[in-house]
């Protein structure tokens, strides 16, 4: 029973080990050029520490949501493409329906102007 979980244990050991090794390598080989900008925490596009009640452009969220939808679509398409010769016509039709539903959503967001930045 417990043996079934062995891969998870191996995964955890490898993940921890890899993380430690990468950190240690960076520490040992990285050299010593440290300045204020390099040491400050990095957050893409924003100040890392400021008032929490800041204004935030809602369009970022819209783009992020649209990105996730189509990103997931790709995530479904890869395993489907690899196994297409075993799932045959059924798989082709099923994916066709899935993509058709996504296209309906795509047309909707297009017509509503969600893809335009201004």
């Amino acid at each position, binding site marked *: 029973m417990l043996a079934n979980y062995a891969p998870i244990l191996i995964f955890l050991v490898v993940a921890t080990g890899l993380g430690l090794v990468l950190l240690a390598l960076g520490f040992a080989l990285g050299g010593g050029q440290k300045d204020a900008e390099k040491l400050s925490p990095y957050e893409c596009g924003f100040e890392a520490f400021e008032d929490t009640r800041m204004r935030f452009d809602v369009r970022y969220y819209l783009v992020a949501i649209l990105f996730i939808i189509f990103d997931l679509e790709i995530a479904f398409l890869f395993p489907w493409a690899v196994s297409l010769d075993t799932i045959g016509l059924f798989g082709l039709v099923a994916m066709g329906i899935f993509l058709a*539903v996504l296209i*309906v959503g795509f*047309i*909707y967001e297009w*017509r*509503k102007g969600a893809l335009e930045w201004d």
Partner: protein
Amino acid sequence: MIDLQLAAAEVFMVCAICVVLLVDVWLPDERRLLTFRLALLSLVGAAVCSAYYLPNGSVTAFSESFVTDPASAVMKIFAYLIVGLVFIYSRDFLMRAGLFKGEFFILALFALLGIMVMLSAHSMLTMYLGLELLALSQYALVAFDRDSPIAAESAMKYFVLGAIASGTLLYGISFIYGVTGTIQLGAIAAHFSQPGAITVPALLGLAFIIVGVAFKFGAVPFHMWLPDVYQGSSTPVTLFIGSVPKIAAFALAWRILSESLGDMHGSWQTMLAVLCVLSLVIGNIVAIAQSNIKRMLAYSTISHVGFIFMGFIAGTEDGLQAAMFYTLVYTLMAAAAFGMVILLSRSGFDAENLDDFKGLNARSPWFAFVMLMVMFSMAGVPPFVGFYAKLVVLGSVLDAGLIWLAITGVLLAVIGAFYYLRVVWFMYFVDPVDDSPLDAALDFRVVISANGLGLLALGLFPGVLLDLCARVIG
């Protein structure tokens, strides 16, 4: 192929929603009525599919994760009917408020699809899928009036609390899966019918599932979202949320508690009884203090949930039939009540306060009478159908030997009658605050009159719906 036939109504609904969505994005604003007509047409089409592909018994499909039986078909057709009422009542209000957008109808149809999936769920995951489809559509519907801060606030509350409740339900499901090793409802029932199968982890899972079910029903102490959401949404959305999703909540309790965890009845009976008594007490007493009609109807919903729970508490076939009868009758009553609130609203003015009902008899005797029928039915006055709904539920509890519960129910129903009758008193014996005549489209007048008279007709001939419930469920 047979699988797709069993899910014909759901498949049709998905296609219909896609068509409505695509037509709507190309329509100019002045031809938006076409969306409304197409939405009504998709309800008719779904009803035809549900009726035409109705199997004789209970047949499962898609690796036993989907089931079609007469009970679910009857409730689906009832749900189409109520959503149709919602659309007709909402149309003019939405136009006046500048909210007549295709998204209202599309989101409502998606929510209906979620309800249909829940009614036909035969695995925990199918149930959860339907529930989330329903819940997400509802969150968006509550926030539908984007310029209203109170709508945004209630949508946020609903979303956060709803997410916690969904998580709780899912956590409970994971315990049940851990104990039984299956998510398929029939297999879970088979597992718990063995002696000694009811263990502590299973009971823990059951408790979490009950919390999820109670939240979706809005039973005390998981009712906090209900008054705020009812009050904060624009009235057509309140009308939708206050009526059809109760059928979904019934489906959740029926499929999971009665069908798959039926053998744990001894364990969940007490839990539900506590929720039931609390809902009856808090719902009926707090409703008296409300001056906002939507909040009053929200607390009235909470008290009706107590009565629906009684049918489950009895745990018998009669009890289940009574709960189904009560749920269907309640959705009809709620649709008519919120329809009347919409009728009293005018452009730029929401009839939200009880005061707006003052002197309705002087303004329009017929609609005052319709509201009187609705209020009498909700209060449980014979010969209206609300009386028979309470009667069968109390009867099933008495048959199960829970005399104290029946007495509590009757006492609190009498207390509750006060605030329904207060509305009637306002309409007939108080001078109107505002004398302007009611204006509503002809179809609105005809449909709401039929809805009110339906409560009377079903009350005079309760056997029609009672026999139907008895034939299809149990």
